[in-house]
């Protein structure tokens, strides 16, 4: 099994607010992230595909193809967007790193034509990231 990883970066804004909580609770739980005007991050997304290299092309998955999938499914949806208001898949959810990574997994997983999606790692900053794996399992890497 070979693991191939492609990295892309996008910039987006978000805010954390749960309408079921009081204003005071929202401020206590989410702190600065509860600012109603929102704030933004430079996100770094690493997508890892697992598979055997094709005997003819030597590739697990053509990187050009993966690049196009990421552009279509993720960049066009999320880059320079306000995640709370412009990404329908996040409707009704707090756009934390965990939830955005999960949404990205669900968007990409059915679109990978060769190999299989192994891991989505989303960095919200250099010191905070979320990993998403399918089937409740993660492998050694």
């Amino acid at each position, binding site marked *: 099994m070979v693991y191939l990883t492609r990295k892309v970066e996008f910039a987006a804004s978000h805010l954390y607010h*749960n309408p079921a909580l009081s204003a005071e609770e929202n401020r206590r739980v989410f702190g600065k992230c509860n600012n109603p005007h929102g704030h933004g991050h430079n996100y770094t997304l690493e997508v890892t595909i697992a598979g055997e290299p094709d005997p003819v092309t030597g590739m697990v998955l053509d990187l050009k193809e993966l690049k196009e999938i990421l552009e279509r499914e993720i960049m066009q949806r999320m880059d320079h967007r306000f995640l709370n208001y412009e990404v329908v898949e996040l409707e009704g959810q707090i*756009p*934390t790193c*965990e939830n955005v990574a999960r949404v990205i997994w669900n968007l990409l997983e059915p679109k990978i034509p060769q190999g299989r999606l192994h891991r989505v790692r989303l960095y919200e900053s250099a*010191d905070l990231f*979320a990993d*998403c794996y*399918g089937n*409740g*399992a993660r492998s050694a890497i």
Partner: protein
Amino acid sequence: MPERLHIELGRRYRFAASHRLHSAHLSDDENCRVYGKCNNPYGHGHNYTVEVRFSGAIDQATGMIANLADLDAFVTERVIDPFDHRSLQEEVPAFRETVPTTENLCLEIFQRLQLFPNAKLESVRIEETSNNSFEYAGDKESQPSRGEQL
């Protein structure tokens, strides 16, 4: 939503500390041969980066596996405050007898952080320098497999 995903939260912390690699089980000559410059009796220091990963269910009310403020406070109390700007073998009791290699530091930090009550510690990875990193993910043989947990 019919999905079986395993999600982890990763966070990086930093501390600076000094250490000296010296084993009581070895002679002075052997210590010098095995540890080289790291055996300097005055010690030396590193800027350590500790990367931790926790798993758990996403709390629907907060969208989080664990509240970062809670996690940061726990790690600061259990690891950063007792290690930062300290001499590991002189000031951390765990390293009085155990050589403070970064391998052993991974084990010690794993032990401390697996007590975090709000999520399950998956791994501790420490960068001793930008060229050396060490990772400990627990003793998998004594744990149920991930598939069984979920």
